[in-house]
């Protein structure tokens, strides 16, 4: 008789790396991706909305939703990136306003001038990001203060360029962003591009690794040979670029200039960041989460409207969703949340860090 049960040398279970079942791997991947919870929520909301109002489930209907949400989504993605590296960016609203008034006063009918306007918008965004990062790194100003100051400054510049709402944006320009170019919806394409690019950069590139390292702990990142200044500059500038893009969208949508158009986006952008699962303080979260978070915010008001609820209730609902979403993210992202919330967190935050730390 052949021996079937050969006694195996006892190997501690944890040393062996067992092949996990595919479903488990899939679930683990899901839970590692911070944006999944918000994405599921958004999908459920969308399904409910389309069920309530089947007429919206059409090319035009979806197009309208995308148009409405894209500007905020891009703004939230930008500010979200700064949040990931451990900073705050309050200049998002003013940056959008500046871009808006510049484009509204510059853009003409010709394709050439429209192209110049687009480039100008993106450059202005980059510039605003660069100035922010210099204030934070070179002058060691806390990012909250630096970007708040920047917010006032650029808000003022916007007023200088265009004192009152006005300016005319030719429909041909708006068409490039919010229209329908040969059956393709440009905003969907651009949004998709931003989503993919953001994911690629954060997950698959050296720079992305550096973003999370710096956001996790500046001093440790530096001692690992990470170029902390370069990383922070990159984060703020990419954020600025996204503000520029956001400004272009909002300009196309409103077809005019308004020096105060960006300001109301500031708080919703931060709400979207929180709903999207990005941790304030840095080191965790994904830009796709912020983008999804922005659409959740829009979907809330649409849903309430579909249910015939007075729109005054929308802010109340936003507040509730915000708290619930953040509580769920915190709970899901940290299994030890319940046990360690009292001391564990406090300890990490206040553990002494020596040496000069770049304030961000």
């Amino acid at each position: 008789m052949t021996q079937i049960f050969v006694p195996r040398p006892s190997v501690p279970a944890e040393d062996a790396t067992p092949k996990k079942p595919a479903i488990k791997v899939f679930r683990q991947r899901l839970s590692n991706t911070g944006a999944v919870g918000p994405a599921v929520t958004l999908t459920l909301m969308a399904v409910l909305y389309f069920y309530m109002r089947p007429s919206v489930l059409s090319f035009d209907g979806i197009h309208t939703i995308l148009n409405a949400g894209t500007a905020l989504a891009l703004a939230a993605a930008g500010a979200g990136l700064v949040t990931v590296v451990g900073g705050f960016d309050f200049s998002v609203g003013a940056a959008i306003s500046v871009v808006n008034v510049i484009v509204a006063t510059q853009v003409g009918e010709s394709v050439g001038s429209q192209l110049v306007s687009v480039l100008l918008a993106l450059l202005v965004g980059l510039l605003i990001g660069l100035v922010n990062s210099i204030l934070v790194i070179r002058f060691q100003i806390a990012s909250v203060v630096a970007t708040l100051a920047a917010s006032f400054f650029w808000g003022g510049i916007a007023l200088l360029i265009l004192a009152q709402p006005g300016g005319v944006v030719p429909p041909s320009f708006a068409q490039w962003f919010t229209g329908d170019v040969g059956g393709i919806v440009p905003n969907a394409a651009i949004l998709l591009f931003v989503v993919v690019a953001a994911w690629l950069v954060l997950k698959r590139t050296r720079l992305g690794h550096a973003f999370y390292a710096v956001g996790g702990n500046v001093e440790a990142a530096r001692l690992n040979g990470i170029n902390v200044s370069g990383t922070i500059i990159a984060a703020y500038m990419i954020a600025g670029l996204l503000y520029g893009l956001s400004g272009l969208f909002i300009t196309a949508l409103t077809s005019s200039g308004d020096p105060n158009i960006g300001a109301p986006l500031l708080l919703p952008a931060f709400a979207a960041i929180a709903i999207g699962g990005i941790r304030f303080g840095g080191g965790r979260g994904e830009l796709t989460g912020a983008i999804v978070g922005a659409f959740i915010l829009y979907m809330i008001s649409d849903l309430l409207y579909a249910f015939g609820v007075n729109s005054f209730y929308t802010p109340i609902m936003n507040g509730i969703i915000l708290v619930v979403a953040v509580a769920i993210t915190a709970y899901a992202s940290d299994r030890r949340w319940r046990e360690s919330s009292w001391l564990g967190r406090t300890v990490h935050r206040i553990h002494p860090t020596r040496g000069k730390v770049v304030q961000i």
Partner: protein
Amino acid sequence: MDNQFALKVENVSKQYGSTTALTDLSFEVVLGEVHALLGENGAGKSTLIKILSGVVQPDSGEFSTAAGPHRFRSPRDARAVGIATAFQELTLVPQLTVAQNLMLGQEPSNGLRLATNRALAEASYELLAEWELDGLDVELPVEGLPLGVQQQIELVRALGQSAGVLLLDEPTAALGAAQVEWLFRQVVRVKEAGTTVVFISHRMQEVREICDRVTVLRGGTSAGTFTAGEENDATVLQMMLGRDLEKAMRRKQGGIVGEAVLTLDRLTGTSGFHDVSLSLRSGEVVGLAALQGHGQSDLFMTLFGARRAASGRIIIAERDVKFRSPRAAIDSGLGISLVPEDRKTEGVILSLSGARNVTLPNIGRLSRFGFMRRKAERAEAREIFESVNVRMSAIDSDVSLLSGGNQQKLAIGKWLRTSSRCSLMYDPNRGVDVGTKEEIFNLMNLQAASGAALFFYSTDLEELLAVSHRIFVMYRGRIVAELSEDEMTREKILVAMLGQTETQMEAS
């Protein structure tokens, strides 16, 4: 047992997610004794302390004091029944001053309920004097103080509660020799006053010195309790590890000591150290001894490019170099690496996975056109985990979930693939258990054997004597002694660390 117990733990279990921290742990602390808890990292000591102090709640099991069974919901509850705790991971607020930290939550107030700075300071000085810690400026913010002093403040805060039970979670890990003595005096004092003390340490000698009884933890449960001095060190080690430890106390192996790879010529930092001249040779472990806060930290940081030097020269391969950043030190022809003082804030990044942490210094090499080469990244992470012997299942989870010893192994391991030929190790064995310490020594030997130069600072003299080929001693920012292998003795090092010459010692 006819002795009355101060603490009794019965069948306590605790899980963190899928990690089991404690299983069915039972033991008793007798009223008025100093009870030591020994065990490897991950044996469950810290979890036990957290349960006893109300920071976390056990999943099952009973826990009682003399007053009866308890179920703490917060540290406040533990304090209310007279349990005071000094945590290893300090709970001081770094931005606040010493006085504010000491008086946190118990500020002396005048009629308006305002705590004046003066009143705070006076009360703090009183408290410090009571615990023999005079001469500390209580107006200084805590974050600027050496780690040892911060630990002392944390200890005074716990001592000052005049509690019935005092829990000390590895208090000596961050303390220098003189500070340890100070602590032991205080422990004896509170014991005489009737307080029961639970004392966690990795150092067998300390346990022998002040503890009455010892409980050894292994794998989350008790491996036995005995009266101090009853078992010899070898037996205790075996209890801790669950296996025989073939210990070669003289661990010096290293490689063939070669040429100087790094030479310092009157190097002076912007703060902390002056006129340091020394050279590190390939294949050699050079030890550095000093009391806390004598410039060793600044010296290491400057050598790694994390601080600027004020004057003097750093010479590599007969050329003067100036490091503007750690990156420059890592990329210099020599390839310098640093295992920093504080692993939690400097060594590893707690919010990143193990794999991300160990590949972080190499993301340049592991990427092409800015994109990570994921297979290479993965393979390298696995290799490093294997060579430092950290379980593979931890590779994708946050390092914050790992024990301190494993975190430290990763903080060392991440340099193994950087072609580093000069390792700066700042007290790498602080707060790690005996088993891990052995592994770290082995890693150090391996590096030296392959021709790297090691610069090794430690608060533990035994350790320095065991592994160093040469020892430098720093005092007030200057090198005051260089001892060759034949010259180095405990006494000589101690004398130099205290800033005295031997003749002075003899005279006094």
